[in-house]
């Protein structure tokens, strides 16, 4: 595959190139991919591997030239995860970073727009982390809201 030849490492996985990288190397890899035809940034996703105590950030890129999908994966520690922002390379990455910051608590250095995005008034743990107990939270918060107490109907 073209991407694997370019970078010189990684493996093929279900017809896609899968490149493992680390924090420092990632931006140079993605920059090199972008310069060599992989200029469509598809999405940025995050996986919570709670047993290994780590997060995996996956950058998905697509090339219209080579018709090839490449995933660049970065492993971050689960405590105080941080990553450098890549909004200089792809401006649209900013929104994905905002979402992942809100849902997983990953900090992106250099992104100035890490403000609340979909959740409003949220003060708990980021909700997509696997140790967040959504059921218990829903029971605590929403079931504690009382019913409307109606007086005996006197025909309003």
């Amino acid at each position, binding site marked *: 595959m073209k991407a694997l030849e370019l970078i010189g490492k990684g493996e093929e996985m279900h017809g896609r190139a899968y490149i493992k990288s680390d924090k420092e190397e990632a931006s140079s890899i993605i920059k090199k991919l972008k310069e060599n035809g992989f200029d469509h940034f598809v999405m940025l996703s995050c996986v919570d591997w709670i047993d290994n105590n780590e997060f995996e950030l996956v950058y998905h890129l697509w090339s219209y030239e080579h018709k090839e999908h490449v995933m660049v994966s970065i492993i971050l520690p689960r405590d105080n995860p941080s990553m450098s922002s890549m909004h200089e390379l792809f401006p649209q990455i900013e929104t994905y970073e905002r979402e992942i910051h809100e849902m997983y608590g990953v900090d992106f250095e250099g992104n100035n727009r890490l403000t609340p995005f979909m959740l409003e008034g949220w003060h708990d743990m980021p909700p997509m982390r696997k140790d967040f107990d*959504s059921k218990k939270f829903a029971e605590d918060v929403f079931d504690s809201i009382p*019913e409307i107490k109606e007086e005996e109907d006197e025909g309003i």
Partner: protein
Amino acid sequence: MGLFDGDIMKYEDWNKISRIASRKSLWMVHFCTGCGAIELPPVMTSRYDMERFGMGPMATPRQADVLLITGYLTVKTLKRVVNVYEQMQSPKYVISFGSCPINGGMYWDSYNTVKRLDRYLPVDVYVGGCMPRPEGVMNAFLELMKLIDEGKARGWEKYQKYYEQYKRNQKMAFNFEREKDEGA
């Protein structure tokens, strides 16, 4: 207000005219909150054609009589829904679609979905289903018309009467964690 105090027409008769007119001319505000919005096109357009009953979509809440909660409601949407509901001019009615506003539906353990709509807004009619088919939606409209005719659709009066309780519940849902921290 001598006109309606019994000089010319009894207040009850006036109310009755109001009810008959508003039953045959329910305008709904076109605010789609969840998946149920997709059941409305067949109801509005030529297949089931709710304009037969004088119903029609309205662009602004000021002109509308019915608020449709079409499916699940997140906390963020609830703020907007409350805004829209309070802008509507009474008499105003709320119809809730599907399982989610009754008891949470498939979002029963979600961190961001309000489970029971009737704790935040007075609901006049519920429709069952996930989602209800257009026939079910039509049944809900017909039921609401029947209730208005009988003078039983009084959600808006309930909202005025128990306003403090509704406001308290809404506030608790809007900034849940902050309230909890302050309370502790």
